[in-house]
């Protein structure tokens, strides 16, 4: 009874807090905006100095040096313009507070549940989502987690009244957690602590194979009885959805790519890829892009190079693989550090513009939204921001403006409001 009461209280408190006002979504772009004098980081590896960017009706209409100014102009001399950063494979808006179960909507019951869709649970008013924007993270792939096939993700932008408003690409991909050939010892059952070979690996791979084969066969005829899971899988066979396969080990990656391709999956993305750097030729040959694990990680093995997670993206990119960064394993709030994950690779000798690609142009290409997002180009969405300095370095990542589809979005958050309120208290304002 006491426990129940506590839960009720927690719920009350929580919903009370959650209903605090969020930043109001910006109105549709009404007039042309021109950003002038900026160092434009295009997101495809190039930079345009002293650049003017003009956008109207949410789209970039002109970009370059000596381009005619239109509408309101923003002087960005000495400043930097970037395409909005994109966070893939993330539970943003599905979890508000990790330790509060009532605020979690990221992991549904069931082992293979591709029909479970993240979009409808996405909280467009999440305070955590809102806190992405002052760091330049303006879009994300909202992704369910857990089980073998976790469900279907959707891509959203981070300034919306509701999930329908937010949606950029609905049901874009299905997420498969590939079995691991190692598992933790169940020490409470007398097994040694630590990591042991997973004797059930082949069996688990067989289950995935069986599921894919059945899903594919199901699509060959018009089903009399709907199988929601099989039905949801059809997109990966006709190429309308991508299959995101989460795997880290060399063996797992080889098994996964070989098997899902053979099963008829059209477009495969590897997520994680801790050991992908050892089999870059294989990945290239199979044309597999990698959403590599973020850099702010410890090495998996005691004897690994201390900086392996820092340089991993570089090792893959240098080998000619299409790479973007994701931080699926981190807490949601960490996602605002996306630019710094990329910056970390620069410290390992990667070119800054290439590092930027891993959170902009490459990400868009991997997610299949490159026609509209990811780089600064005429005809693409004006989803971009202005930073006082280098946005990949925490010291200089200082946003003055951010736009999503040309809408001038607020850079205030629950956190800046508190900051200002208490500074006001101390400064007697």
């Amino acid at each position, binding site marked *: 009874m006491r426990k129940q009461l506590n839960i009720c209280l927690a719920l009350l408190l929580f919903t009370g807090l959650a209903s605090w006002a969020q930043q109001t979504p910006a109105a549709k772009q009404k007039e042309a905006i021109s950003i002038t004098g900026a160092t434009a980081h295009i997101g495809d590896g190039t930079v345009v100095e002293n650049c003017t960017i003009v956008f109207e009706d949410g789209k970039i209409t002109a970009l370059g040096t000596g381009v005619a100014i239109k509408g309101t102009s923003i002087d960005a001399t000495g400043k930097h313009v970037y395409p909005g950063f994109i966070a893939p494979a993330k539970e943003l808006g599905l979890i508000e507070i990790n*330790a*509060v179960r009532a605020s979690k909507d990221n992991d549904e019951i069931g082992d293979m549940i591709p029909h479970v869709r993240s979009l409808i649970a996405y909280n467009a008013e999440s305070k955590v989502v809102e806190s992405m924007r002052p760091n330049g993270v303006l879009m994300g792939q909202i992704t369910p987690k857990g089980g073998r096939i976790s469900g279907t993700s959707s891509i959203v932008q981070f300034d919306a009244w509701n999930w329908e408003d937010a949606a950029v690409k609905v049901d874009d991909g299905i997420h498969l957690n590939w079995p691991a050939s190692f598992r933790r010892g169940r020490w409470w059952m007398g097994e040694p602590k*630590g990591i042991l070979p997973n004797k059930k690996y082949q069996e688990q791979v067989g289950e995935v194979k069986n599921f894919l084969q059945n899903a594919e066969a199901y699509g060959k005829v018009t089903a009399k009885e709907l199988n929601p899971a099989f039905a949801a899988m059809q997109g990966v066979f006709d190429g309308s959805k991508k299959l995101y396969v989460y795997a880290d080990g060399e063996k797992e990656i080889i098994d996964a790519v070989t098997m899902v391709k053979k099963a008829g999956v059209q477009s495969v993305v590897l997520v994680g890829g801790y050991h992908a750097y050892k089999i870059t030729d294989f990945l290239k040959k199979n044309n597999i892009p990698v959403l590599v694990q973020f850099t702010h990680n410890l090495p998996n093995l*005691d004897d690994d190079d201390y900086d392996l997670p820092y340089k991993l993206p570089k090792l893959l990119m240098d080998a000619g693989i299409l790479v973007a960064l994701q931080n699926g394993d981190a807490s949601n*709030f960490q996602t605002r550090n996306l630019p710094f994950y990329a910056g970390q690779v620069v410290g390992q000798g990667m070119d800054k513009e290439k590092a930027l690609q891993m959170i902009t142009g490459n990400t868009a290409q991997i997610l299949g939204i490159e026609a509209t997002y990811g780089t600064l180009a005429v005809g693409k969405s004006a989803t971009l921001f202005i930073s006082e300095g280098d946005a990949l370095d925490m010291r200089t990542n200082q946003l003055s403006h951010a736009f999503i589809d040309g809408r001038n979005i607020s850079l205030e958050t629950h*956190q800046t409001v508190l900051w200002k309120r208490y500074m006001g208290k101390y400064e007697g304002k």
Partner: protein
Amino acid sequence: MKMRLLSLAIFWCGTALFAQDYFPVNDGVKSKNNNYTAFTNAKIYVTPTQVIESGTLLIQNGKVKQVGSSITVPKNAVIVDAKGYSIYPSFIDIYSKFGVAQPKKSVGGGFGSGSYGPSREGFYWNDHIMPENAAINKFTYDDKKAKELRNIGFGVVNAHIHDGIVRGTGVLVALNGTGTDAQRILDDKSAQYLSFSKSITKKQAYPSSLMGAMALLRQMYADAKWYAQGNVTTKDRSLEALNNNKGLVQIFEAKDKGNALRADKIGDANGVQYAILGGGDEYERIAEIKATGAQFILPLNFPDTYDVSNPYQAAMISLKDMRHWNQAPANPKILADNGVPFSFTLNDLKSPAKFKERLMKAIEYGLPKTKALEALTTVPAAILKKSNRIGSLQTGRDANFLITSGDIFDKKTVLYENWVQGHKNVIADKSLKDIRGNYDLAAGGITYKMAITGELGKPKIEIKQDTNKLKSKISYKNQWLNLSFATDEGAKNYLMTGLVNENSDNIKGRLILPNGNESTFNAIKTSGFTEKKKDTKKAATTPEMVGITYPNVGFGYSTKPKATSILFKNATVWTSEDAGILKNTDVLVKAGKIAKIGQNLSAGRAQVIDASGKHLTAGIVDEHTHIAALAVNEGGQNSSAEVKMEDVVDYEDINIYRQLAGGVTSAQLLHGSANPIGGRSAILKLKWGESPEKMIYDNSPKFIKFALGENVKQSNWGNQTRFPQTRMGVEQLFMNYFQRAKEYDTKKKSGQPYRYDEEMEVIAEILNGERFISCHSYVQSEINMMMKVAEKFNFRVNTFTHILEGYKVADKMKAHGVGAGTFSDWWAYKFEVNDAIPYNAAIMQQQGITVAINSDDAEMARRLNQEAGKTVKYGGMTELEAWKMVTINPAKLLHIDERVGSIKEGKDADLVLWNNHPLSVYAKAEKTLIEGVTYFDLKADEQQREAVKKEKAKLINMMLKEKAGGSKTQAPKMSKKKLMTCESL
């Protein structure tokens, strides 16, 4: 009725055979055998070092009567000519479970179901302290197990209940299957056993950690003394038993080099010298192990070879584990070389059958045979203080001995007999004649070719008719040979049996023909048996042992790095002092100190490092870490002030090295936040390769962890039965503890007798301003409360750590005089951090509070420079102030700013050379120094990587070779350490 008679008969029989002098006899007449048995002409190991090449061992009534080379054998002696045989004292295992019923784990429960109070009445307050337990009460002689042990040479074992922190007394048993407990039990209170492991039968949550177990033992000894002085009015059977067991040998189960040192330290503080059950890794810290002065009991469970045939799986095994596989068999040798006395135990050996193999391995690795024999005979006897009874064949000792075909540590040697208390146990029939060889077998009119091979007592047979191999069988026992073979594809069977004649090489006997007719067979020996010589090459060389490093894991140093004089030339120097940032400046490091800062300094003999374009800073100080810890929380009680993180420093944690690579040189290893009053901190310098003692600051400032909020009220774990469950309760708990500590301290200072209470001692230190609090805190209400509690008791909280709502009460914090160690941008992971903002550090700093950015996270700790950089973004800190948040500010909070935290002449040379602006995400530490010693160097790291790769490849090759040689293998595994945070239980 019949049954009863039968059992009575057995009973009578038993008493008749083994009657004690004063027992009445009703099944016959009293009779006694006072004859002697004399083993003559034998090679006798009276002790491992006193060997008679050809002598006589005379025994009577289960005792050694005489031993020597010229002994007059009494007339009433049964003489056994033992010419060609060797006689050894039989082996002793003093860490056994033999015959003692071991408790089973209580079923049910699971995480969070622990209880906080004791389950017993009239005993010590902690269930895991059970000195009143006695193995004798759980003892039943187990003849099957005894036989198993006798078969590998053991004659006496000392068994106890392997359960709990104090486990009570053991029982010393002779493996005498012929006698009764009256003869067998040599001592029913042979030693007292202790460990750091809780009882599996008890649910009391405390102690939940290694450091808790250590604190409990310390307190227990203090309480026993207090009890012995008559200060306790109630009955405590545990403490009484403990005091009664005081005179016994005390044996401590450490099972690990570090735990051995931990146990010894507790023993030293309480006037007890433990004998220590080792873990087989003592060789890694041999000097310290030797310094304990303890006798060791060593396991022989050397790791099995890893199966590395699958490279993906092989990659999971750490160099540390691979090395241990290679080095562990040398452990006994290294201990012997260093004069550490040790005995061997079968404990934790999967099967006694492995005993000889493992023992031989230790000898192969260089353990002298004399030492091996001592470890099985005289040393275990000496550890138990029973040398006058067991362990040798000197006059008056129990007649426990082995008769072998020769050197007992030779692979081919046969153990024939194991005599226990004068009773003979045959392991192998030494009178059995060697019949191996080639024969012409005449049977039923045909002569076949017969070859007998294999082991003497377990021969193999091959019978051929011309070149045709026949299906055949052989058995050989008690001089009788049974043979059979079949011709015509099994259709016709020939059966033979015959007694082997002592005086002839040929064998004759009865033959039953396939048609049932009886006949005779005759086997004429044509040639003798020659054993195949296979491993002659292998035996000659000692196996290669790879080098030990400091620490003995990947990236350890083969020699400990030393302090050198270094001149950093033309650096951009971030002083973290009023001097700010000095461009083109030289810094001279000498004798571990910052000797000089200036321009154009002369190098003298110092090594010059061109630092142009680079940045030199003080080493980063992390106010809040949980790396390098074997335990983080003692959550078994709501206060655990008695525990010390200094007790559980894990100097082998690779995260130490990784953090050096991130420029961290000092860190406060904090207790976790599982309870309102946590444990005492360890303030460390991250001296990779040094022992915990050398990593801990000299004259370390005294700190303790306190905690508030969700964790201490167990909001997200636990069974919700421990007080407090609310923030209201947290205040009351603090008030109560401080009040009690105050009263305790007053009593202590008054000179009245008082019960020493380590917990109260520590809390009183806080009240007396000698110990500082680092308090885990989140929301403003609790922060305010903590300061008010402190003020009521006239002290100040030193540091609020986490302090994510510090910005809401920064003015009050300033007034109180407390510092803050916070995260740069963490939030949203639990309910109480909903209002955490990344501007927190800046706001608090602007209100005049000393603010540090800390980690509480092994990963983030290696980028604390970047985390400091975030305060520039969030809240507009100047770069100078931002940098201070990870150097001088945390040093101030930890009261170590006189020594570290800034670049100032005279301070410790704890320095980092960065290739870029240190607050930048692009910066990389190129060199990290502590007290002038370069503990991390980017170039040396490259070499280390190569070395790790090469050594692994070498060890993998060695393992593959072992596997090919038929060695038993184990599946690869990765012994992964758990990463700890505040909340790790």
